[in-house]
C-alpha cells in the first residue's frame, strides 16, 4: 500500500518570499503524483500532476514540483508567494494507469500562511 508524508504541518512565509513544501511517498512502484490546494471553505483544486517524463512539472499560479525517484519525493515550490496563496496544500499519489486519478492517497496537508 502506498503512503504520503508531508512533514510540515504549518509553514509561514512573507509575501514575495519563496516557498517549498515537502512531500515524500512510499510505494512499491513509482506512483502518479499530484499536488492539490484547498482554499478556505472550499474543495480541492489541482495544482499540478506528474505521470512520467521531465521530473520538473509546471502547474498553475506559478507553482512547480520536482519528482525525485531516488528520494521518493515530490516537493512543491513557488519562487514568490502572494497573500492569496494562503491555503492548505495536499500531496497525493495514485497507482497504475487504470486507477490514475481515482484512488488517491492524500498526505495530511501543509497549511501555508502568507504574511503581508
Amino acid at each position, binding site marked *: 500500500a502506498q503512503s504520503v508524508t508531508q512533514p510540515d504541518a504549518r509553514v509561514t512565509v512573507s509575501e514575495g518570499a519563496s516557498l517549498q513544501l515537502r512531500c515524500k511517498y512510499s510505494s512499491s512502484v513509482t506512483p502518479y503524483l499530484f499536488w492539490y490546494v484547498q482554499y478556505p471553505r472550499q*474543495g480541492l483544486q489541482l495544482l499540478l500532476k506528474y505521470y512520467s517524463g521531465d521530473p520538473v512539472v509546471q502547474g498553475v499560479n506559478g507553482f512547480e514540483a520536482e519528482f525525485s525517484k531516488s528520494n521518493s519525493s515530490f516537493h512543491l515550490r513557488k519562487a514568490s508567494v502572494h497573500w492569496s496563496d494562503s491555503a492548505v496544500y495536499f500531496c497525493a499519489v495514485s497507482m497504475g494507469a487504470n486507477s490514475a486519478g481515482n484512488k*488517491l492517497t492524500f498526505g*495530511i496537508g501543509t497549511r501555508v500562511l502568507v504574511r503581508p
Partner: protein
Amino acid sequence: GALVYQYPRRTICKSGTSMRMECQAVGFQATSVAWYRQSPQKTFELIALSTVNSAIKYEQNFTQEKFPISHPNLSFSSMTVLNAYLEDRGLYLCGARSGVSNERLFFGHGTKLSVL
C-alpha cells in the same frame, strides 16, 4: 470545461438521522466517481469508488450499509450518510473522471456535514 457540482454545500442534521448529498458532472461523462471524506483536522479518506456498470468498491472502515451510493448515469452520483453521528462530521468530496486513461479527477466544492 469540465465541472463538478455538489449539493448541498453545507448541511446540518440531528444525530441519528440521515443525509443525502449529490454530485453532478458537467461537460464530461463521469464514468468513475470517487467519494472522499475530510474529517476535522484530518486529510481526505477514500470512502468508495463507483464506476458505471460495475460494482461499487468500498474502502476499509466504510460500508454500503452506512454510505449507500447511487451512480445511475454518466453525469450524476449521490451518497447518503445513514444514521449520522458526530464522527461522521466533515467535508465530503466527490471526484469524477471520464474513462480516458490518466484523466485526472475533477472535484466538487464538497458538502460540509455538521451533526448536532
